């Protein structure tokens, strides 16, 4: 198969005829709906993902706010002086259908709340978030390609994602599950035995896995085969490296959760006894399987975030990224090591030898991450730093993610983890990395790429004000939880001893600030879509290929196939496309030549 079809090249090579923006309407609403629902355009699929995951984030966030309100003053039994009983406290679960007189039901509904929150936030929101939305939209643009490698497969992934979400939402609609997002056996195989909703939720996670695998596969092939002429591996933007590393993890780890959840389903339905201790099975085997996927998956969540951070940081600081290769390789390093540390979630249920091994490996995974952080900070040195929303979010990410990552260290050390495991310390840790890391980077990146995606600018003041609300609210909510954890507050508790109440209350107030902040963002975005000023093709002065395209890009991304003539971060040598040297002045080129 070596013939090169030159005829074809002539026919398809240059798209010189003028095309409209990918957002151009097809004339009627029906035509538009049909067009979007059957599109194989990566940009449209990316945008659909964006709205879907933001909707999931909203649902998960509402569940979070609700469970935080329950923790403000958990309902308790009150025995009055005359011996009669009443329920005190803030009992919100009746709003969900619980019996207000029955505290066991209150607890059940609380458990369903945090399970819904966890499942939505991880499987339906965070795993697909950056890669499926921004990755889909920008990967081909960053590579100078017209689309991803397998556009129809991409559409299939999207529909699988929808199907999985429907399984999940159906389960939630009919009451939800009380297993936590980890589905530990034997609890998950026995709880709520008569009802199908637990099955449906496990099914959801199972189906969503396929979507994740196919997207990852698609991206890997895209990176290998669709780079623009002149783009070597080390000319790729770091976001591409990050998506590439992410995809590798998705492809290699997700099948394992697939078979695990399949076994769990079989176990629940057919009672084969592999995980059921009553029949000779082994519940710890389930934990191994689960974390073999779910540890790598936390890097699926963070790596794309690190990718967009690298992009935003260098663009808004107008600085060549410091240590490009170190950052690129550390992405791959993280991906590789991430497969060897899953046991650190199970120190309290595994043998000494295994625990020791996993503890040692856990510290190993912190090293490539530390390297990245150092490089990011060094990138700021002698930059030309614009303080705008994407930059604020980038700095916010560095602040919050560092705290989140560093608190991973006492969790990785054996002795301290035995105290902190399954406490609010862990809750705080993973919110600092998942929310403070990934979500913050995601929201920043949405601002960064908003003009490109929708062709409109957003309001800086509103966006920055919302950032500060989110940032401050976040710290109030979750920093307190470190103290809760070290002082002995276990997680997944619907109530608690009095001594923890003050800190819980502070945490709940903080969560309201976060909610307000995101509401601000929501309004900013809606306003921008409706009345925002038109965006220029390159508002920030970026050098990567997506900024050569129009805002929003045309149907096939570029008018001509772009050719790569400079590195993605040569800010000290190149005037950005569509920009004026007046706005983005270059330093003395002799000096640049001397320094490099």
């Amino acid at each position, binding site marked *: 198969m070596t013939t*090169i079809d030159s005829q074809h090249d002539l026919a398809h090579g240059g798209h010189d005829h003028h095309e409209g923006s990918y957002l151009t309407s097809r004339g009627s609403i029906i035509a538009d709906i049909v067009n979007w629902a059957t599109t194989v355009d990566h940009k449209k699929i990316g945008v659909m993902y964006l709205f879907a995951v933001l909707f999931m984030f909203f649902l998960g966030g509402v569940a979070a706010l609700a469970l935080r309100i329950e923790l403000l003053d958990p309902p308790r039994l009150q025995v009055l002086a005359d011996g009669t009983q009443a329920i005190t406290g803030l009992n919100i679960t009746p709003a969900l259908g619980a019996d207000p007189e029955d505290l066991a039901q209150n607890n059940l509904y609380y458990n369903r709340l945090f399970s819904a929150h966890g499942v939505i936030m991880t499987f339906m929101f965070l795993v697909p978030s950056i890669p499926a939305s921004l990755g889909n939209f920008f990967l081909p643009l960053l590579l100078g390609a*017209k689309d991803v490698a397998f556009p129809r497969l991409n559409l299939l992934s999207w529909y699988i994602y929808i199907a999985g979400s429907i399984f999940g939402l159906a389960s939630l609609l009919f009451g939800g599950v009380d297993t936590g997002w980890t589905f530990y056996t034997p609890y998950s195989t026995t709880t709520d035995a008569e009802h199908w909703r637990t099955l449906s939720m496990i099914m959801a996670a199972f189906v969503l896995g396929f979507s994740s695998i196919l997207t990852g596969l698609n991206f890997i092939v895209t990176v290998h085969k669709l780079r623009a002429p002149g783009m070597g591996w080390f000319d790729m933007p770091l976001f591409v490296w990050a998506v590439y590393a992410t995809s590798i993890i998705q492809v*290699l780890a997700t099948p394992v959760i697939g078979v695990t959840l399949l076994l769990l389903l079989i176990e629940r339905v057919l009672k084969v006894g592999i995980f059921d201790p009553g029949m000779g099975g082994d519940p710890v085997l389930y934990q191994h399987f689960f974390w073999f996927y779910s540890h790598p998956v936390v890097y699926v969540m963070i790596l794309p975030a690190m990718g967009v951070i690298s992009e935003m940081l260098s663009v808004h600081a107008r600085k060549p990224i410091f240590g490009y290769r170190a950052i690129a390789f550390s992405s791959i390093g993280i991906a590789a090591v991430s497969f060897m540390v899953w046991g650190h979630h199970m120190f309290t249920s595994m043998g000494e030898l295994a625990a020791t091994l996993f503890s040692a490996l856990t510290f190993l995974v912190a090293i490539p991450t530390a390297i990245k952080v150092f490089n990011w900070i060094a990138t700021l040195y002698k930059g030309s730093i614009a303080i705008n929303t994407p930059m604020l979010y980038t700095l916010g990410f560095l602040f919050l993610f560092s705290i989140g990552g560093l608190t991973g260290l006492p969790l990785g050390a054996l002795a301290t983890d035995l105290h902190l495991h399954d406490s609010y310390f862990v809750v705080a840790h993973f919110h600092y990395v998942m929310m403070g890391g990934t979500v913050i980077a995601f929201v920043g990146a949405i601002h960064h790429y908003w003009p490109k995606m929708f062709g409109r600018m957003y309001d800086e003041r509103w966006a920055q004000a919302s950032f500060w609300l989110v940032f401050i609210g976040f710290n109030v909510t979750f920093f307190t939880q470190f103290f809760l954890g070290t002082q002995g507050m276990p997680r997944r508790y619907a109530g608690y001893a009095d001594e923890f109440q003050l800190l819980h209350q502070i945490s709940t107030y903080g969560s309201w600030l976060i909610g307000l902040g995101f509401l601000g963002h929501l309004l900013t975005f809606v306003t921008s879509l409706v009345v925002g000023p038109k965006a220029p093709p390159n508002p920030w002065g970026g050098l990567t290929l997506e900024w050569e395209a129009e805002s929003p890009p045309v149907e096939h991304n570029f008018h001509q196939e772009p050719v790569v003539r400079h590195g993605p971060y040569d800010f000290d040598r190149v005037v950005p496309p569509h920009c004026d040297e007046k706005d983005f002045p270059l330093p003395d080129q002799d000096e640049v030549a001397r320094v490099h």
Partner: protein
Amino acid sequence: MTTIDPQAEPALAKPKGMRWESYVHGHHWRNADDEFDAAKLGMWLFLSTEVLLFAGVFVSYAIMRMKYPEAFINGSGYLDVKWGLTNTFVLLASSFTVAWAVRAAQLNQRKVLIANLIFTLLCAVAFFGIKLIFEYIPKWSEGKRPGEWFSYPYAHDPHEHIWWGIYYIATGIHALHVLIGAGLLTWVLVRSGMGKYGPKNYAMVETSGLYWHLVDLVWIFLFPLLYLIH
């Protein structure tokens, strides 16, 4: 199988939009080579996910075997090596013919391609038939069932239900893959009949073939694990 002379193939009619001669690669590819390589790379990646999926099954097997060696030794004693071996040969033969089919597509031997595909599908049917008639149905009716369903009265070991659980899960997931593979090959067969595959376009034949090899490969591992190791 009758030998088919490629020369005997009638000269193809004027290329219509549907046939392989007029195949045009997807517009987002720079050339057909890239597209073909991408399809293969994609399939290899997908196969690696399948391998990992089965790795999960194999690990469960290993762990449970470690816990209950007696149950597994007894359990595999109930299996009939004869049928396992037959099925192994059936799949091996089908792997061979599917590889031949790819070759035939490359060389534009349409009848060879079709004949090989049909033979492969027949093998799939045979595999299923043997599995069902000589293994699943008799075992299930004797009470050799997984987990809670287990009701075989002459069990030697109290944990034989675990063995049967692993047995049915492993062979069941594999059988599902045989089914999917057969579906893919049927699709390829139909399209071969329409003349869609030839030297310029045979990526689909090749990738489905790769998938079929995987199905075979997994069985090559399952067979000794389940039938042979005592």
